[in-house]
């Protein structure tokens, strides 16, 4: 039996992000649930979030973000041979989202699959894409994190409706150029199914529930070792990180993890402030914004950390191209 050998390393060629047009402010929410702007800003860190239109789908958002990433990469649709959509809020499981997204982007006959690792989804998908390129299963992979959490939220539940939002982020993954170092480091990932009941939907006719305090405690105590292990596996000193981009769950969780990394020079992503918590979209969306604003650039080492329902988590270091 033969095996394939791909590239010596993989890298992200470009990012793209999409947010729905509709802005929902804290005051908007305070009109219908018992909360207020100051409380949300101080406890969660969100000022505004974006909510998709009622007929706007996860696939719509994925196509938008994916299209931007593809355009920014300089590649054409025919260069993409695999599309992965990380999502836990697809409109349907049959068919998947990725095949439809590929077709709408003019990508023909590529591999296509959805994957669900909740808020760790993008990091899981990025790791898979990197491995496929290195193993020779794919040459260029379009990785998209896309979520419409608003259709799974109880808008009368102030513990969740202030947090979750909609959006999509995408990355084009491909081989490194000859002789260049890898641009996507080894992943460190894991899960803990004993905490499966901490963030959940009971069935398809239900809403998202989460035990906020338990999730807070877990994420601010158990995850920095994972992030540091990813740095070690990549051979990157945390002190040299240009940025730390964790899942945008809650600004105080982000702070709580960041202060334990020993990375004082790293810019800590705060995209949640104007994006809300968009699950698997949050990391690529944050990265696309940071690159657009010039906050990170070519050659910068960036630590990614996804974590969420499952519970599941994944971290890797990437180098911005």
């Amino acid at each position: 039996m033969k095996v394939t050998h791909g590239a010596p390393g993989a890298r992200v060629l470009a990012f793209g992000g999409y947010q729905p047009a509709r802005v929902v402010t804290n005051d908007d929410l305070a009109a219908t649930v018992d909360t207020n702007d100051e409380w949300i800003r101080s406890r969660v860190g969100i000022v505004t979030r974006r909510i998709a239109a009622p007929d706007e789908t996860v696939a719509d958002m994925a196509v938008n973000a994916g299209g931007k990433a593809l355009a920014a990469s300089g590649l054409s649709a025919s260069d993409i041979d695999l599309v992965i959509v990380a999502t836990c809020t697809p409109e349907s499981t049959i068919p998947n989202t990725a095949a439809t997204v590929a077709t709408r982007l003019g990508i023909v006959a590529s591999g296509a699959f959805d994957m669900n690792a909740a808020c760790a989804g993008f990091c899981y998908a990025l790791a898979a894409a990197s491995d496929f390129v290195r193993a020779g299963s794919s040459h260029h992979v379009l990785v998209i994190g896309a979520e419409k959490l608003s259709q799974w939220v109880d808008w009368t539940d102030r513990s969740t409706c202030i947090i979750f939002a909609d959006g999509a982020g995408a990355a084009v993954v491909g081989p490194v150029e000859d002789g260049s170092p890898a641009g996507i480091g080894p992943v460190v990932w894991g899960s803990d199914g004993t905490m499966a009941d901490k963030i959940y939907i009971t069935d398809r006719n239900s809403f998202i529930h989460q035990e906020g305090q338990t999730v807070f405690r877990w994420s601010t105590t158990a995850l920095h070792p994972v992030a540091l292990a990813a740095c070690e596996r990549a051979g990157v000193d945390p002190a040299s990180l240009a940025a730390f981009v964790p899942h945008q769950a809650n600004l105080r969780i982000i702070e709580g993890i960041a202060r334990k990394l020993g990375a004082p020079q790293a810019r800590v992503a705060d995209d949640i402030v104007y994006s809300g918590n968009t699950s698997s979209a949050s990391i690529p969306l944050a990265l696309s914004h940071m690159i657009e604003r010039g906050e990170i650039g070519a050659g910068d080492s960036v630590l990614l950390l996804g974590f969420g329902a499952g519970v599941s988590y994944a971290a890797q270091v990437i180098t911005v191209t």
Partner: protein
Amino acid sequence: MAMTDEEILSGLGEIIDEVAGVPADQVTPDKNFVDDLDIDSLSMVEIAVAAQDKFGVEIPDDQLKNLKTVQDVVDYVRGEGVSVLSAAGPAPADGTQLRLPAPWRSQVSEPALPPPRRHLTKGAIHLAGRLSTHRCHWAGRYHALGR
């Protein structure tokens, strides 16, 4: 060398100032977290996590809910036999400058965003309507399959 109650109280004051914005000099032993310091249950978890980093003492949720006053926490930390040499876990990066805008501490100039198309009340009703329509449709198909 065991920490004195004064040292524990001082450390706790720093934590509460950081987590809840209550000035450390207002963190006196008699203060009740909820009634006097306006600290909610999620903030208590943050305080417990920070206390674990600072004092090396874990405060599990089932113990945390019984700690009503500042003195209760001081007693708990002292009772766990904390010493300045026994702090567990990796040391937090002292002096770490996190480049966060801290929107709750200052005015944030928001980017030019399009105004909301409709008030959320109508939006929520619209969302709820779409949601119930979506779910009823889905449920109908599900039952039609005989499951």
